């Protein structure tokens, strides 16, 4: 598995296989975001297609120093989805058709929050096994440190350090790529 740096380099060199790798790795997350924002599968697939085509066209603007490939792709997808919603809303005003059709499926969750969840989920998947496992038990099963130690058979001190390091990794990633954190609101990829 190649790193983002290597992938970015191959992408900049015009290697279509690098885009395919990015699609295999992150297409599911992009599609999920688009589907949540747009509320229907057909528009979500269209936006996913637009996103990867824009990523290809604008491949020179991806800077691994500023964020990860996933964060960059999700940023593009968000803008494409918002454009789609806006133009749908404009059409609706013109034709006075039902606005409900274009409302996001789930209005309680902001686009930023969905992006945050996707990047944190991605980072969780990249953590070393024991860090990941202890955090999953804490997050999903709501277990305390001593309970995690009992379940996994790891010493309490080890559980503590796995969770502390794991949390630090997730936090770092969220600060780099998370939408709610705000660092991604401007940047060269905005033009895409």
């Amino acid at each position, binding site marked *: 598995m190649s790193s983002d740096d290597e992938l970015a380099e191959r992408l900049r060199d015009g290697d*279509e296989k690098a885009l395919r790798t990015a699609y295999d790795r992150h297409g599911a*997350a992009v599609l999920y975001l688009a589907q949540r924002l747009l509320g229907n599968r057909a528009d979500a697939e269209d936006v996913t*297609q637009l996103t990867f085509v824009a990523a290809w066209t604008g491949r020179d603007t991806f800077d691994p120093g500023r964020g990860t490939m996933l964060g960059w792709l999700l940023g593009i997808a968000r803008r494409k989805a918002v454009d789609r919603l806006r133009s749908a809303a404009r059409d609706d005003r013109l034709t006075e058709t039902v606005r409900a059709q274009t409302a996001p499926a789930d209005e309680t969750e902001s686009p930023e929050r969905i992006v945050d969840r996707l990047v944190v989920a991605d980072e969780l998947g990249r953590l070393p096994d024991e860090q990941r496992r202890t955090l999953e038990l804490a997050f999903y099963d709501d277990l305390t440190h001593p309970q995690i130690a009992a379940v996994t058979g790891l010493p309490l001190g080890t559980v503590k350090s796995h969770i*502390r390091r794991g949390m630090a990794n997730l936090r770092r990633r969220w*600060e780099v790529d998370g939408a709610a954190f705000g660092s991604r609101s401007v940047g060269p990829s905005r033009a895409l």
Partner: protein
Amino acid sequence: MQHLDPDRLVLLALSEDQQHSDESEHLAGCAGCRYDLESLREVSEIGAQTQDLRDLPPPPEHLWRAIEAEIAPAAASPGGSAAVTDLAAHRGRAHRRRSRWLAPVLAAAAAAVLAVAGTVVFDRLAGRTGGEQVLARATLAPLETVPAAAGGDVRVLADGQMRVDVRGLPLTTGFHEVWLIDPDDLTKMVAIGNLSGQPDVVLPVPVGTDLNRYRLVDVSDEPHDGDATHSGRSLLRGTLTS
């Protein structure tokens, strides 16, 4: 000033422990620790909402092919001929349309391709006269990306069967499909059947197929993605002549 221990911050962020009074006092006066705690709280809250994202289904293959067709038509089918490129470009458009409303009628559309075919060159009755009478044949040649040793022969028999012999095809994780294509309009094609990994198969040509029009025999590499349309990855081609 003694800042909060990182392990304590994590425990507080996960709501596993209550703040002691001296900790609350410190947090009230220390923006740095407050900021760390808020960040970790947010991360643990987000983390707890990631369970359904951990195993997202892989994105569909047809969507990739639409992307591929759009970014570099030539790359979609590195065979490189203009004809192949047109096919790939068409697929991109077809997929976008299909994603909206065409899916239910796709099967019907495939049937319509047959219905509009004009001349009926043969029918089942023609086969009564002789077992191996050959109506048309084609020699299949590899496209540029395929090893030069690959190739094949096709014979359309009078009983409406098509005998396909192939050799040297690259291995596939999907399957090899045989098509009859209209060389004057590469978007029009008839799926004949798949080779199921055998070098020699006999496939029925649908009754009513106009072999004067659908004379380009194409063997493609198809993924197992449930998408019945041509993948755009042609391996062998040849033209039927009588």
